[in-house]
């Protein structure tokens, strides 16, 4: 009876339908603002080049043409290779990153580990102070000789202080010392405990930092800009950046593969080609997004509530 009253009152007390309506409208507008730019570049990518030059960017192209895509597909190898680099780096990098982060975070999350404060500060200090771009660049190229190597794309984001601290906080709160202690009494080694107890119990936080890693590797263009020289090692984001800077990146070998000189084909799409490249670069992340989002929110939620 009381519960019913409360519920009724609570409902009465929730925002009015009118306010609700206003908010819905506001959110709809905001959502359009989030999606419209993506739609715009898609529409531009299927606009006829000449009509684009005349009429500018519009959601409603006066003449539709898929020539930009036809053009891109003629030299699909380049895009495929860039995707290969991105995916390879992303997978290897994420696995290594999670493993190293866990290896560092687990010992420093143990209260029984005497030097945990020293090691915590060791990683925390990297957040406070950095050597800067030039010394880092010199180290990677002159001393580690990683120029033009895919390792230069994998290594830098491998262990970040932020990820270590997230995992450390999670482990400290969610990993009862008692379980570990009883495993130790059973004679299990620390490595065994790590792999058969710690890791399975940390799946949510692993998902979170794993997704952080995936996102960092997937969206990276900066490391590619600094360290990669040969086009065969370009990743997809850097390829998009190149296409935005210079259309030649997309046209140089394309024209060649046409093998036809009819004047029609000489009309290389320019702006539309760039936008088609952007669409192809964005594609996977939009499709993987629903899956991504679910785990991301789950992980973040855990992080936020526990951390």
């Amino acid at each position, binding site marked *: 009876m009381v519960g019913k009253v*409360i519920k009724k009152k609570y409902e009465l007390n929730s925002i009015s339908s009118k306010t609700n309506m206003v*908010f819905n409208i506001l959110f709809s507008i905001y959502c359009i603002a989030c999606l419209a730019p993506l739609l715009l570049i898609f529409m531009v990518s299927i606009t006829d080049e000449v009509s684009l030059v005349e009429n500018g960017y519009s959601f409603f192209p006066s003449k539709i043409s898929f020539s930009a895509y036809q053009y891109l597909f003629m030299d699909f190898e380049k895009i495929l290779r860039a995707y290969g680099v991105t995916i390879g780096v992303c997978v290897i990098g994420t696995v290594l990153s999670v493993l190293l982060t866990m290896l560092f975070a687990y010992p420093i999350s143990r209260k029984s580990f005497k030097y945990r404060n020293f090691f915590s500060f060791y990683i925390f200090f990297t957040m406070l102070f950095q050597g800067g*771009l030039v010394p880092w660049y010199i180290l990677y190229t002159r001393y580690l000789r990683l120029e033009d190597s895919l390792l230069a794309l994998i290594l830098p984001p491998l262990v970040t202080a932020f990820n270590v601290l997230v995992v450390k906080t999670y482990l400290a709160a969610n990993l009862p010392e008692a379980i570990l202690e009883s495993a130790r009494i059973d004679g299990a080694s620390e490595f065994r405990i790590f792999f058969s107890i710690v890791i399975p119990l940390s799946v949510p936080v692993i998902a979170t930092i794993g997704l952080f890693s995936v996102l960092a590797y997937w969206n990276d263009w900066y490391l590619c800009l600094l360290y990669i020289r040969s086009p065969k090692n370009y990743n997809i984001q850097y390829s998009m950046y190149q296409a935005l800077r210079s259309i030649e990146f997309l046209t140089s070998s394309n024209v060649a593969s046409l093998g036809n000189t009819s004047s029609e084909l000489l009309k290389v799409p320019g702006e539309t080609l760039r936008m088609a490249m952007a669409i192809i670069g964005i594609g996977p992340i939009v499709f993987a997004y629903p899956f991504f989002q679910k785990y991301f929110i789950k992980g973040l939620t855990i992080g936020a509530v526990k951390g």
Partner: protein
Amino acid sequence: MGQHNTNIETDLHVVKKTKRKTPELFKELSKNKELFLMLLPPFIFIFINNYLPMFGIVIAFKNYNYNDAFLSPWNGLKNFEFLFKSRSAWIITRNTIAYNLVFIFLGLIIAVTIAIILNELKNKTLAKFYQSVIFLPYFLSWVVVAYLVYSILSPNGFYNKSLVPILRLLPIEWYTEPKYWTVIIPIVNTWKTIGYGIVIYLAGISGIDQEYYEAAVLDGASKFQQIKSITIPFLVPLMIITTIMAIGNIFRADFGLFFQVPMQQGLLKPTTEVLDTYIYNALMFSGDLGMSSAAGFYQSVVGFFLVLLANWSIGKISKEHKIF
């Protein structure tokens, strides 16, 4: 002779001290050798990736040449000269800090507001949908965002060619007018990153015990009063943590945002050049490792003291929230 003796004595003292310490470390090492073994790979990695470059900072004080590299002659503070010419240092420092403050403020206010409203919406499915859509830009890279902004603002873009004729606006050359970018940059940044904050605060809200609201309803509190005196106070710790994290990075700008989105247009530099892009450009245009290291040194050191300062002032306000 006497001095010599004292030296030996101090040396002995040191030896003694370490001797006393060593067994302890060894004991700890043998007791926890597996834990140390685990720490070793990431420890070495962090040392190489993060600590070694710190020594490289000496380049900032050298007249770097490729022949002598790290052994190049010392140069005093000469490398810092170009940084303080033509007001560069002032402009990039101002831009970096001002934008970060704006981002922190907007991020806080907008994310908390949206999170609270989303939570109050009647149709939960719709609320979920909104949240998903708002989160989407967070997953896009800055390269993609640069494309999107360009498609709207370029001379041939959506604004100038589609909006201007319909709404009878004035055509604007966005990429040549620095003044607009003080607004464009925060909008773009908020647009891209706000979804992350919303998720965090929604999680915070969902962690609040419903009983508080029920009690408030019994007391006749209005929705607004509930938000004011229950939801927001509960979110405050989360807000403080987020803000502190951001303040720690106040002297570091998001390179992608400032490098990609203004498309490196020279004219926009007064309002879009920040420390990180400046250091990169110094390396690219002057090609002088000493001078760009000097800019990097400025960022590292001033940034470091800003964090200390922030931490100290937080300590003054509330001890428990100190970072270290």
